[in-house]
């Protein structure tokens, strides 16, 4: 019963909350969409926190996505042991990098008096949840080795079963507890997405790569005559 709730209902619940929450927040309070950077108040620790965290987590999330999108490709890649070792080693190294970044981010929130002024309770909740997620992830990598191999056999089909609205709960509920914690915590993070600073992920300004350098806006552009 609890499995059905956690792996059959919770994913849909959190996605529904995330989508409606994001729309609600964007429509009613676009002003609050910001990276709410605190670099201006604290610079040094941020470098050791933010840079490893962001680069690490982007690559790790990309890895999770690739495993789901191309399970066959990943299996084929892992067919040669050396490649498997390299992939696992890289993933674990990135996991540790992310952990270091996160620890710095948490530490600076606690140690800088200026930062405490701009830290909301949600910031702390988010950082703690992310820490749980990262520790669980590293734990899986260490204790249940060759995750990149079994991930494509378990999590990938589970993901697609959720996407196709016929969730196969047993894919996840038969896995070790640590993996289940990792999954449930991920759902919680998805659900909290619109209510945290995570919304800045939706603001990645790719358009900057091709927009002209200068922007001129007219109150009412008058048509040009000859």
């Amino acid at each position: 019963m609890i499995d059905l709730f956690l792996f059959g209902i919770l994913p849909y619940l959190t996605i529904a909350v995330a989508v409606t929450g994001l729309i609600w927040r964007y429509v009613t309070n676009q002003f609050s969409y910001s990276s709410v950077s605190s670099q201006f108040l604290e610079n040094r620790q941020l470098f050791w926190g933010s840079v490893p965290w962001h680069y690490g987590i982007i690559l790790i999330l990309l890895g999770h996505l690739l495993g789901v999108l191309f399970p066959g490709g990943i299996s084929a890649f892992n067919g040669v042991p050396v490649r498997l070792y390299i992939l696992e080693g890289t993933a674990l190294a990135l996991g540790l990098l992310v952990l270091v970044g996160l620890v710095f981010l948490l530490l600076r929130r606690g140690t800088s008096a200026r930062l405490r002024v701009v830290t909301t309770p949600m910031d702390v909740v988010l950082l703690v949840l992310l820490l749980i997620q990262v520790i669980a992830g590293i734990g899986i990598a260490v204790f249940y080795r060759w995750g990149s191999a079994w991930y494509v056999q378990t999590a990938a089909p589970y993901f697609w079963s959720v996407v196709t609205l016929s969730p196969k709960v047993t894919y996840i509920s038969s896995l070790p507890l640590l993996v289940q914690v990792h999954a449930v915590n991920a759902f919680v993070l998805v659900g909290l997405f619109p209510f945290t600073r995570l919304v800045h992920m939706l603001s990645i300004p790719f358009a900057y790569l091709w927009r002209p350098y200068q922007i001129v806006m007219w109150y009412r552009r008058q048509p040009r005559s000859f």
Partner: protein
Amino acid sequence: MDVRAQLSSVFHLDKCIGCHTCSLACNNLWTSRDGTEYMWWNNVETKPGTGYPTLWEDQAKYRGGWEVKGNSLVPRTGGRLGILTSMFYNPHLPTMDDYYEPWTYDYEHLFTAPPGDAPPTARSISKITGRYLDVEAGPNWDDDLSGSPVYAKNDVNLKELTPAEREALFRVEQLVFFYIPRICNHCLNPACLAVCPSGAIYKRGEDGIVLISQEKCRGWRFCVSGCPYKKTYYNWKTGKSEKCILCYPRLETGQAPACFHTCVGRIRYTGVLLYDADGIEAMAKAPEADLVEAQRRLILDPADPEVAAAARRNGISDDWLGAAKSSPVYRFVKEWGLALPLHPEFRTLPMLFYVPPLLPVAASTRTGRYDLAEKSYLGNSESLRVPLKYLARLFSGGNTGIISGALNKLWAVRGYARSQTSGHITDSQAKEMLTEAGLTPDAARQIARLTSLPRFNDRFVIPPYRREEQIQQTVDPQQHKYQVGFGFINPPRRGL
């Protein structure tokens, strides 16, 4: 020719008394909120000095403005991909310590202190953390401190001076300094805008005011380091950048911006300039020493019928053309060549111009008294107390000819005015000075008039915005009345 209008300004540095009234007027109006209390959209600096934020002119430190790479003009901050990949940590961002930590005083203690031997004091407390703070820096901490080893001697503009020249500049008997009031330059080629990943900053087509959309800003912070003048600021509370808005709500109702209106020394002028938007990139790429001339070429003569016709084609009304014709800024910048942009080598084409300070002339003390008359009454460009090279670093991209040209004109105008009023200088002497400076007596009279006796409406020629007419064309004014206004419907809060 793509003619556009720009509301521009001139600050006459000889008249600035460094009273900071402008800063306070601005602060009272716009930046007395949480998160903005450290911002001074208008600040007054003592030069030579390091300014606010500290060493803002040092682009090796902050990487602001533009540079010419090969044949193209690129932000010094970096390429587009470079900016996107350093969003997580902007290596050139000034932090609060580069400005100062805003503070107040623990006044409450004066009332609640227990009886004791010594009278209670109000200690300084941080406006950010609320803790006791040992104040070490402030926005005008370098006020009048020329010659101090901390401020004046670290001025980056002194780099090209010889040790002897530096030594002479800081000799106690002839210490010299002047003030530079600074606001956003509302540049033609703004670098803050170019490096904004969100595209939240824009230049208004009608009057050229550069603004930041608070809704679109995502707090990536590149405008702060990208502006070479450090005139965009990061609101640490809301996580959005803010900057001088040239008091556009005042301008649109026909009033001069608050810092202009309150200026005690009446050093500020504002008016419309017409410019050719097609030429911006080419002019911004000019060699460093030619940048002032290039910018003057970009500014068009509103009395030229061809320009007026092109302006009308671009939707510039006759009212605005008329305002451009009587603009004091046009006269100071283009007609007389007296007003110069601050640091044109940043290549943003700033539209705030400064009349360089003539400064007290070095007198001789050889006869045992302070003798101005030894050489000539007003001196000449050889007896400048501040080296030409220093002024050229500030106002002409190192071109000393432009500075001496402007200063000679200022001298000639003074000489001419003297000959008309006190008679201390003869008419023939005055005429000689004018010919040397390349001025006619008529121009000198007008310069003297606009410098020393301008009326309010001579200083501020604000074009009629007629916002109400523009509004009528799109929405019912009654409805519009309830939809707009300055500020927020909900109080701005930091994230969630």
